[in-house]
């Protein structure tokens, strides 16, 4: 049984609140992807050269990337030949299988932050400018506050104008503390203060906001490496988690970003933001394919509770199943 039939059956029996968030948040993406795929199978009852050309277009327009797209198409071609399938609708299901099988095979599928048994758990949040990093930090903080954890925020983004202020507003709204430094001060010293405070106050989760940096800037990447060292000095083994925030509208540069960050810091997860836009989000497949890093959370709306644990099945269901 193909993935789609499996999921249809599964979710027809049991839908969770999260499944609804996915189907709702991904409505626009679904229009882009699933509707196109469906009209493709209606247009071509039997597959042929043109079918595959149009399929290629759909995949590439979903930001899946050229390399992965060509591979998926090769795999689908081979399987359809082997099994002698030419019905377009059936082939569509095989396409979905091959898109997501890769994701499932490439390493673990963690979501929630892994807390250490003893002392503060440190979560470093990195990403380029404008992806929604600060907002995501606020949403993560709320998530774990709701779970009864104590949370401390550290504003190590001392570079972007207004960054600390933005985080302060969120900290005030959430009623938690924020460790900050002067505008343009050394981020490492802010991080140091934050770690010391977390240790003293016996905080469960410290979230460190790191300056949105373009991965091509060597000095910024060096600074990030230094930040890691300073944090580990106060809390050995920390940071325990490092999340890369990626805007769902990001194109193939998302892969380049993830690779660059993975070189200087141990990337343990990706958080996808703005998935509720018209975005295609195919970049998560490309990143997983190249680096094997799991998507931990996904932003499905602007409300505080719209940051959801990433669930591949709900994701595929939200992306592919007709309403």
């Amino acid at each position, binding site marked *: 049984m193909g993935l789609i039939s499996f999921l249809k059956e599964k979710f027809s029996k049991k839908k969770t609140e999260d499944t609804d968030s996915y189907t709702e948040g991904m409505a626009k993406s679904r229009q882009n992807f699933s509707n196109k795929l469906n009209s493709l199978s209606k247009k071509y009852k039997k597959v042929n050269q043109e079918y595959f050309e149009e399929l290629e277009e759909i995949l590439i327009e979903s930001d899946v990337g*050229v390399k992965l797209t060509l591979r998926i198409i090769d795999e689908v071609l081979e399987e359809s030949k082997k099994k002698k399938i030419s019905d377009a609708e059936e082939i569509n299901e095989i396409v979905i299988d091959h898109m997501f099988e890769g994701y499932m095979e490439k390493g673990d599928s963690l979501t929630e932050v892994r807390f250490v048994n003893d002392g503060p758990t440190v979560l470093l949040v990195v990403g*380029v400018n404008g992806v929604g990093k600060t907002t995501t930090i606020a949403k993560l903080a709320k998530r774990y506050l709701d779970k009864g954890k104590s949370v401390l925020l550290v504003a190590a983004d001392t570079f*972007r104008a207004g960054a600390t202020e*933005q985080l302060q507003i969120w900290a005030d709204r959430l009623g938690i503390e924020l460790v900050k430094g002067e505008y343009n001060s050394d981020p490492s010293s802010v991080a140091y203060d934050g770690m010391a405070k977390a240790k003293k106050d016996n905080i469960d989760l410290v979230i460190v906001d790191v300056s949105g940096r373009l991965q091509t800037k060597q000095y910024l990447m060096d600074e990030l490496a230094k930040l890691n060292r300073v944090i580990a000095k106060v809390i050995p083994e920390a940071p325990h988690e490092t999340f890369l925030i990626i805007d769902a509208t990001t*194109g193939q*540069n998302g892969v380049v970003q993830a690779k660059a960050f993975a070189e200087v810091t141990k990337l343990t997860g990706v958080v996808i933001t*703005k998935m509720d836009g018209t975005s*295609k989000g195919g970049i998560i497949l490309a990143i997983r394919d190249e680096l094997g890093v799991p998507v931990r959370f996904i932003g499905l709306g602007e409300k505080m509770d719209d940051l959801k644990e990433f669930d591949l099945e709900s994701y595929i269901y939200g992306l592919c199943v007709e309403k």
Partner: protein
Amino acid sequence: MAFENLTEKLSRIFKKLRGQARLTESNMDDMLKEIRIALLEADVNYKVVKEFIANIKEKAIGQDVLTKLNPSQMITKIVHDELEELLGGGENEIQYQNNRPTVILLVGLQGSGKTTSAGKLAYLMKNKLHKKVLLAAGDVYRPAAIDQLKQIADSIDVPVFSKGTNVSPVQIAIEAKKEAFNEHYDVLIIDTAGRIAIDEALMNELSEIKKEVSPDEILLLVDAMSGQDAVNVANAFNDLLALTGVIMSKLDGDARGGAALSIRHMTGVPIKFSGIGEKVSDLDIFHADRMADRILGMGDVMTLVEKAQEEIDEKEARRQANKMMSGKFDLDDMLSQMKQVQKMGSLGGLLKLMPGMPKITPEQQAYAEKEMKNFEIIINSMTFEERHNPEIFQYSRKIRVAKGSGKQVSDVNRVLKKYESMKEMMKKMEQYKKSGKLPPGMGGLGGFGGF
């Protein structure tokens, strides 16, 4: 580098096709495939790529290969010219009004860089064009957006018109325009709120602002990293607001910025500016030829040259040149030369701009940059006399400097060795000067080589 240079790919394909004098359908196929992949990897929209490739094919088939070019160079040239033509064109300069403020409205999705670009535009107009600029803080939704604009504005000494977050953006725009007229500003730049995607509320607000203040320019911010969806976003904004231009932001990353091509092709809206760095001075007028190089992954020589010209302190350079020519050259001079180079940005960034330099790995780049820093630390640990008379260095002095700078004696030796070799180069230069010729590779940036 993430992508093999397209030029290299093409020449590899053409190695097997040497000696063919004409571009034919069959010998072009492989190359067109590579060009297609390069464009798609640069996030150019699929449909645009398709049309583009068809165009190239039509233009190229049957063309005689110019005698001096091999076929791969020939096709690269055709592609490049076509890209440049597509990217450029249109009215891509701001039209300033003579007797009243020019009103500019900035629009775009969340995180596309509106607020930062508002500051950069203000800086560019104030400092390069000597305009009197007023910024209006119209993003009342995002936490701290107004603070961000104020911080940037303060740093460049431009006033911000703000009514806090309790007044509607439309009202703010109207009042800001009044203020700009009354106080005789040359330019008013209105920052607006972004949304996660095109939604009705945002669009209504923007069209109302447009109706109320009738801006002279409506510029859309587009993130250079955007994927295939960029073109839909641009279309939606353009349909509603009739955009007058696009600003590409975040081109200082390594995103190839294919969205620029897609948007230009699909909407016809000209690209007017590009954001090329984090500093407020890092906004540049859009150059179609350079963008064409970038999308193809071919380096950007012109930007390098201009950057070097702008950043190098002319006076300091002349002082040094005179000193070099007189044959006097000490460690202080070496250090200030190194600093001049650093001013132009990271060495890696510079090298990336140069074609034919892809062989330098990021590790090597980082090493070179670290080495420069070490040199500075070591030289700063020397006494005045030592810096001006490096010949007096003996072992005991080296040990002291090594200790003072927290380095090894071998590091100090490396500095001195570098100094010797640069001095040697200066000497040669002097000889060449006497003979009236410059040694190869010593023009312009001479002396910086070797780092």
